[in-house]
């Protein structure tokens, strides 16, 4: 009788732990997916800003063809990118191209003073910040998930929860880590 009670209690305890760990792993996995979705939302938002930005800059700086084309091409590439690694690479390239565009814009006082450009500049600043923060949040979520997958006791329930280690969103080239210098004004 006593043995039976002990067995029942142990089984119940084990079931509770399993349920708790299962939910923990699934929640961590959902956080990672949501984190990546947020990065994609912000990347899309930046892509949507670009045609308007390019048109505005063109109006004042027709001769800066190469810089403008680099931005347009990088934008096209990011839309085709698939998966974490490829997206991160295309993202870094576009950030670099936008950075150059902003440097060029510095030479055109009329452009810098236009309301339209100032609005676009603010939207671009915030979107670059959002991409950086979404990336940071995503990487923290990935770290939490990957840690849970290799540590006790959650590691015992990985198969049951059907989760696996996820890839970090790493900016490939250190020289391109700097966001476009659009200022904090």
């Amino acid at each position, binding site marked *: 009788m006593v043995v039976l009670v002990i067995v029942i209690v142990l089984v119940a305890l084990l079931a509770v732990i399993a349920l708790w760990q299962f939910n923990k792993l699934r929640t961590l996995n959902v*956080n990672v997916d949501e*984190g990546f979705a*947020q990065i994609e939302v*912000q990347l899309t938002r930046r892509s949507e800003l670009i045609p308007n930005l390019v048109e505005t800059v063109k109006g004042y700086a027709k001769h800066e063809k190469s810089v403008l084309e680099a931005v347009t091409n990088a934008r096209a590439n990011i839309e085709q990118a698939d998966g974490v690694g490829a997206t991160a690479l295309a993202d870094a390239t576009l950030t670099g191209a936008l950075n150059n565009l902003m440097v060029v814009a510095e030479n055109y006082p009329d452009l810098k003073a236009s309301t339209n450009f100032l*609005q676009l500049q*603010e*939207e671009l*600043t*915030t979107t670059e*910040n*959002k991409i950086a*923060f*979404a990336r*940071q*949040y995503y*990487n*923290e*979520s990935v*770290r939490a998930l990957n840690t849970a997958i290799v540590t006790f006791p959650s590691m015992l329930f990985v198969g049951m929860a059907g989760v696996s280690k996820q890839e970090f969103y790493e900016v490939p080239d250190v020289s391109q880590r700097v966001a476009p210098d659009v200022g*904090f*004004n």
Partner: protein
Amino acid sequence: MSFRAAQSKNKRKTFILLFVMFLFVVAVIWAVGQLFGYGSVWLVPIAVVIALIGVWGSYWNSDKLVLKMTRAQIIDHDTAPQLFNVVDEVRIAAGLPMPTVAIVDDPAPNAFATGRDPDHAVIAFTTGILNAMDREQLQGVTAHEMAHVGNRDTLVMAVAATTAGLIAIIADVGVRMAFFTRRDNSNPIATVIGLVILLLAPIAAVMMRSAVSRKRESLADATAVQFTRNPAGLRRALETLAADSTVVHERSTAVSHVWIESPLEGKSRSLFDTHPPISERIAILRAMEQSGPPTT
């Protein structure tokens, strides 16, 4: 010290303080029992109910109440694009839902966050702080407020206020009863200790509540750095606030704990302060800047 070390230190201290407050509750109940016999403990559940009614209504509706009290105007992306964008950035870093953003028409630079949970959060800025800060500083201030939301500080402070209120009610009724009740007590030492506890516990409880508030402010500073990874933004914002001498018009103690900088306190340091000294907060953030960006 890294922001992570600062976070765990302040979380631990909050826990210890709340535990000590709980011991105070036990002490006042013991004192009442000593003085009037344990038949008088019926007082405790009544005191609990009164303390709960006093605090939890304002906790549950804190978002609506504070907006009304400070006459804050809710804004969206079209009315204040930069402010709205900054809040949106920080909430992405925090992984929280977008809070209600509001502006208080007041020349004194300050900001606050409230709301019972992240889904009902409000973050408000005075017109003074919007005029005084650049984008990076504003991001630091927003991160501090978003940290209060993420750390559930409205809830933590409601718990602290309830406990302090409970202690005050029991001690107050106890002291009054001591004047009107005559009772043959076989133990005069216990009677004296009981009376001392009843007289001192309410003051000590308010001090503990203020200490909890100070720890939550330090925690919010550290969590803000976790969100932005940029201690300099908040540090420069606090420097601007320290240099400013105007105070918020709404000098109500009811909302004083929610502001980023205390609207009430003077220069001297006291155990009743709701915020740590601003110079100390600046020094801690500066130390985080020097320890370099964390690898995570």
